[in-house]
């Protein structure tokens, strides 16, 4: 089943083509890492695919009515905004917004989804804490839990692991992998290529407004492509403990 389909997709901002000729399709059970240098258009691609920016071409998500799209894709923006000092549980419950009508209370199914999200992100002890008083990394975990509570088939996350400690970075990527085994998919933008190589089933390199490569990590992270897209050299090795990718130096 295709969860996201972009065909001949392009975005213009300020009279400039930020993205053009994008063709991308995400099926069930994938963890797709979106990688690329600063300004390559990773965030723009995800926001426009959701219909949050003006776009040209076809996006299966942007074509949906707003409420239906909210049930089909969860979006975790990079800006970690928590405007009011609400408690963690209240914040995570907001993930159920696309399912709850105006003035309605959450159903038991909604509460179970919230509990599952809290369990996945290991936030049981935080339920009653005030979200704005947590550290940046803890807030990131709470916001990931919020998007998990949405329980949409596709989760789109913009740099969800930035600012997390190594244990929680790995745990976050593992929870994405767990979602994939349940038949859901994740599109995640990452700057840590080592993390991307290890935990994603597929990598998409975005460079100069287009897709430079799309495939499994071993095929995508070739010296030539890495050099062209990022301007660095790197060491890539298949070990018994999995794929190891280590950036070496700027070329």
């Amino acid at each position, binding site marked *: 089943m295709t969860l996201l389909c972009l065909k001949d997709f392009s975005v213009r901002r300020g009279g400039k083509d930020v993205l053009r000729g994008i063709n991308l399709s995400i099926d069930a059970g994938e963890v797709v890492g979106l990688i690329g240098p600063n300004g390559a258009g990773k965030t723009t691609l995800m926001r426009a695919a959701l219909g949050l920016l003006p776009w040209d071409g076809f996006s299966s998500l942007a074509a949906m009515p707003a409420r239906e799209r909210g049930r089909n894709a969860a*979006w975790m923006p990079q800006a970690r905004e928590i405007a009011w000092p609400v408690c963690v549980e209240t914040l995570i419950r*907001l993930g159920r*917004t696309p399912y709850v009508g105006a003035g309605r209370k959450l159903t038991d199914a909604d509460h179970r989804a919230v509990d599952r999200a809290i369990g996945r992100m290991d936030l049981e002890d935080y339920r009653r804490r005030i979200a704005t008083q947590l550290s940046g990394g803890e807030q990131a975990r709470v916001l990931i839990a919020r998007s998990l509570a949405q329980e949409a088939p596709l989760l789109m996350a913009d740099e969800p692991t930035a600012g997390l400690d190594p244990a929680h970075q790995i745990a976050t990527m593992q929870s994405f992998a767990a979602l994939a085994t349940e038949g859901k998919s994740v599109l995640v933008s990452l700057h840590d290529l080592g993390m991307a190589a290890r935990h994603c089933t597929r990598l998409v390199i975005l460079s100069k407004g287009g897709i430079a490569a799309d495939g499994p990590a071993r095929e995508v992270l070739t010296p030539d492509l890495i050099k062209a897209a990022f301007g660095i050299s790197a060491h890539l090795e298949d070990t018994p403990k999995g794929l190891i990718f280590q950036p070496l130096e700027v070329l």
Partner: protein
Amino acid sequence: MSRLALILWATVTALFTVSLLIGPAEATIGQSLWALFAGDGGPMTVVMREIRLPRAVLAVLIGGSLGLAGAAMQGYLRNPLADPGLIGVSGSAALGAVVSIQTGLAAAFFFALPIMALSGALMGVLLVLLLAGPRGSSLALILAGIAISAFAGALTSLVLNLSPNPYAASEIVFWMMGSLADRSMLHVWISLPLIVLGAGLLATLARGLDALTLGEDAAEAMGINLTRLRLSVILGTAAVVGASTAVAGAIGFVGLVIPHLLRGFVQARPGALLWASTLGGAGMILASDILVRVVIPERDLKLGVVTALVGAPLFLHLIYRTRKSGL
């Protein structure tokens, strides 16, 4: 019903009753209520039905409006310092009223003042919408509101400045302080439809304002229509604040202080703050209007002066508490 709702309803009901029982006409509680409900056609019935009842009803309507609009504005802008006056409605409504007093229209024709004030509010909100655009950011809305407020304020000063008649000038100044004295049921009927309409619009926003806690991007991705939300906030606030200013003048601090005061009691949820602030605002205006009549009844103390006198120290205390708890 939650404990907070119970306390707020009880407070508003109690203050409403007290408001009905206070006045220069000497009558016991029993006589007053008998005159209100049974209506023997005597002078006390006229006092209760034509003077005290509209005053108390207007206090509830206007206080509720200001509290609700304040909560909606703070929730939409995600800023605890936002105030319903921020979008320029109260300033432009005041300008309309001042022009009607200055030109003598208000003295010649009873409806002139509220109608001119409402037209002023309407012009103000149209200009703000034009300046800020239908889809623009919240920052554009704040800037447009400040510009319109400043312009309306400047024009109001100009009218005062050029006023050849000191009586008109002092009437303008007193009107701008805000008051519920000598209002009739007609004032209730003028403001009620707009307040009901605007409050109805603002009351639908709870879900959207809650979702906005996560930022505009996340809220929109969860299916919240931000364009409609923004339009509802602007039009709803314009209707309730415009109608309130038209019948009672400019009453400050309620829309700012009440949401801030009650936020802690609704666990900071912007949606729940809407109804809580409505009741809280009604309570604050009822209490202030009682104070106006009890403290120095012979001097016609203005309502807006009392709300600012009560509101400002309360606000300072809240700032101090906020700083201490690091929220």
